[in-house]
């Protein structure tokens, strides 16, 4: 069925190396997204109409533009338009962070507006200062609402990074393709074994994270 090819040479190691490339890019992008998204999300409740409008437009762009289109624009477009040559890795981190920050911003905005104002009031009425109210009452509640969703964002980020092969980054799918090409003669059925393995690898990475997210969601369900 084409699984034998994985045992040949260091093929399996190469495949895992490809996965590591994808995971590294997702991890960096997630970190940037968490930070930028929190900033943007807090700003979305800002009174300033211009800031609000800009952020809305940003979110709408991300909502309707496929990540692959953004990836193409960042990778091929900027070279042409700005004359700067950015690497495929840099382009993908920029695009995934751009996308992830928007998703995160929406989550933060939702979590912030989901806290009833009376929670602030009852805390203030107890004599806690505004600062203490944020630290002990509001932020812990926001984190409980946000954490499961943010963890979900990580799996979505990992799944999305499979696109980077389309701009020539050698990640797990590309490595798989190369192995299949190289063994076309001796292992004609390699495509099944390799792509099945890639499929399983992605599942093995994403599923536990999804489970963790669901577990936390249930645990903190208020």
């Amino acid at each position, binding site marked *: 069925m084409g699984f034998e090819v994985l045992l040949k040479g260091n093929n399996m190691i190469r495949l895992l190396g490809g996965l590591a490339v994808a995971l590294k890019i997702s991890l960096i992008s997630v970190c940037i997204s968490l930070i930028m998204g929190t900033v943007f999300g807090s700003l979305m409740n800002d009174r300033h109409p211009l800031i609000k409008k800009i952020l809305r437009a940003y979110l709408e762009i991300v909502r309707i533009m496929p990540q692959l289109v953004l990836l193409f624009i960042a990778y091929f477009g900027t070279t042409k338009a700005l004359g700067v040559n950015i690497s495929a890795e840099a382009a993908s981190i920029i695009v995934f962070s751009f996308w992830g920050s928007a998703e995160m911003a929406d989550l933060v905005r939702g979590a912030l507006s989901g806290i*009833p104002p*009376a*929670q602030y*009031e*009852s*805390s*203030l*009425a*107890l*004599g*806690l*200062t505004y600062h*203490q109210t944020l630290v*002990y*009452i509001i932020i*812990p*509640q926001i984190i*409980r609402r946000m954490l499961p969703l943010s963890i979900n964002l990580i799996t979505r980020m990992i799944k999305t990074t499979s696109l980077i092969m389309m701009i020539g980054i050698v990640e797990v799918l590309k490595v798989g393709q190369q192995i299949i090409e190289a063994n076309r003669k001796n292992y004609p059925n390699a495509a099944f074994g390799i792509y099945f393995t890639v499929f399983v690898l992605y599942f093995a990475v994403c599923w536990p994270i999804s489970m963790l997210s669901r577990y936390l969601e249930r645990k*903190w369900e*208020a």
Partner: protein
Amino acid sequence: MNINGISKKYGDLVVLDNLSLKVKSGEVVVIVGPSGCGKSTLLRCINALEIIDDGEVALDGKAINPHDKKLSKVREKIGMVFQSYELFPHKTILQNLVLAPVRVKKMNRKEAEKEALHLLERVGLLSKKDNYPRQLSGGQKQRVAIVRALMMNPEILLMDEITAALDPEMVREVLEVVLDLAKEGRTMIIVTHELQFAKAAADRMVFIDGGRIIEEGEPKEFFENPKTERLKKFLHSFTYE
């Protein structure tokens, strides 16, 4: 507690109109009035959750300034219980109770917990100390909320329609706690629709309509011999004939 000619407007809508009210130490004042008359706003103004447009609220002869950096120091002395309980959902009952004493009053955690357990026992909820708010009934939550306010040992307690969100059979368990506090000599301002309870708990009744005090007096006089037409009409609306 001295409320002196306070006014509050939302845009053009006058909610409180030059309202004055004195509350002596140990006195239980029960405020009644039609919905939208400004009684809840009054409580919120006392605690500076709303900023008053005019007038002054003073506690122990000192005016409460909503812009004061030390506002939380004043609020320590004013306990407030909300209609919707507002327990903190991410903390257990015991944690809800000791949070403010430990963080605000810098009370020793052990001592605070001891006090909390003592009060919980008094309201019959000792067994719930490690539960989360979502595991409690409305009446239980409200009793915890009252205890949470008591934990700060406030000079005055404000209660804003604390039984309005409860099922009838739970109203009683909450009101009994409040009656108990009244007997103990706590100073309280209570906003409620429970006239029977008001009669039992109040030292003084106050009727507010249109942001002003229309009538006030001893409970007996207030209910049996209302002087103003508006109060007569209001009391009448509670009887079915």
